[in-house]
């Protein structure tokens, strides 16, 4: 039987990344602890439809999810917006605290009605899983780290044009999409 030459794995960029779309009706929990070297977010309506994102974990602080661990993770990652209107924008990853503890937050970059690409990846040539595990001290128990997109506040996309119409009365109680009155104050201070 002839010797079979093993096929080399295709070294495509797409294979090294996980892609998520953020927009109307899309999933609100995005796996971040993945064996991929980058997370590519297709952000529809940055700063108009999607405002920011939180990064949360199922870990307890006693298992590693301390403020310091979150800071290590923030320091280990880069976050960049690529937009045809605004160019490349570095997005800071900040550790936010609340009465319940700490988590990461990042914005979705400059405003656009179409779509921007936000890329979250480790600074070092490791996977997101490796970067996260290292930041949290390589917890022994199974756990998840999740990106939670948050809707934008202010003008909803159906009223946000470059023409900046005056605020209608009762802003926040739109007849079409009354999402604003139920938004959380996610900083929780």
């Amino acid at each position, binding site marked *: 039987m002839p010797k079979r030459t093993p096929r080399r794995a295709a070294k495509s960029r797409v294979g090294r990344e996980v892609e998520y779309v953020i927009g109307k009706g899309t999933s609100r929990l995005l796996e971040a602890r993945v064996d991929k070297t980058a997370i590519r977010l297709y952000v529809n309506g940055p700063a108009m439809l999607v405002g920011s994102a939180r990064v949360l974990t199922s870990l307890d602080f006693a298992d590693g999810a301390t403020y310091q661990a979150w800071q290590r993770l923030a320091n280990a990652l880069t976050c960049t917006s690529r937009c045809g209107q605004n160019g490349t924008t570095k997005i800071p990853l900040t550790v936010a605290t609340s009465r319940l503890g700490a988590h990461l937050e990042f914005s979705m970059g400059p405003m656009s009605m179409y779509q921007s690409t936000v890329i979250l990846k480790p600074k070092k040539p490791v996977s997101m899983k490796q970067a996260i595990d290292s930041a949290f001290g390589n917890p022994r128990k199974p756990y998840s780290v999740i990106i939670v997109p948050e809707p934008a506040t202010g003008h909803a996309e159906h009223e946000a044009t470059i*023409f900046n119409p005056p605020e209608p009365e009762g802003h926040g109680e739109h007849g079409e999409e009354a999402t604003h009155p139920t938004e959380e104050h996610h900083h929780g201070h």
Partner: protein
Amino acid sequence: MATDIRQNAATMPAADFEKFIKACVVLKSTMVSGTSFSVYDQWVAIHGSIMGVRTPGSAMFTNLGHQNIGFLPWHREYLRRFELALQAAVPGATIPYWSWEMTPEPSTLFSNARIHRIFFAASNASEIGGLFASAGPQTPPAWWPSGFRWRVHPALQVGAAPTLRRGSPADSWPPSLTSLTAIERINTAPAGVNVYWVFWRELESGARTHNTGHNIVGGYMMNPVFSPNDPLFWLHHAAVDRVWARWQANRVTAGATLLASYPVPTERSPFNNQLPPVGHRRDDLLWPWIGNTTGYAVNSPAAVQAMLPNFSAVAPRRIRDTFDIANLGGGLGGYQYT
């Protein structure tokens, strides 16, 4: 009226593509009598004004062309009417479609031989040059209007940019043929939800579809209000429309009707349980092709509104009138894609 054929912009005969470009230039260089703007500018103004339309009895201005289910029907009507305007300028001209799955550059399509470069994955935007050079083309074709330069009208500019530029750091492109085929075959939705919701959401705002395409080109294509300033807009939206047409054909093959492949007017959004805005529902009028219906308003600047043609003599059109590309009615004839 014969059925028009929209061809693949990358592979169609050069002479046919030239008809499209020539027709755009004719419309751009034909001034509306007594004004400072051209016929082409009027089409840009229509797209700009769809961003904020107040329908009769409403207190709000709503985007009737984007971000909801009317996105596809409105752009289909808009493109078809623009195509007929092209044919009035250059008989036989049709809108080519951008075959999204092709590697963008280097290519004949994105070169000065056709729609000009997009400077794929560039750090900064650059002037397109060629036929669209700020000083006019260095070697214009024989049909080029003497002294004409493609300039963006001041009322339709963003950031005081008078010339067309392209280039974006976004590089999430192209989509694969497999992914596009999968979109054209979307045929399932949660119980009680018209499958169109699933399809439309993917086509307008999914990964490597309409919104992404605008983002990777940049320049005016990335400005939602005045993106038709760039003639690539028409090729991009023909690609969008073609995916819709192929999805519709697949639905019909599977036993559905064109009418049933769009939510009924009483179906609430699966995102928020609200009815889609007036202007997006199946039986709603398509602004600006509203005939003599009164009570509509737009919130575009006065200079943009001044460019809008008077469509009152045109028979009113509705969302559902756009479902059959082979027979659009209303004097629009029909078309097909290769």
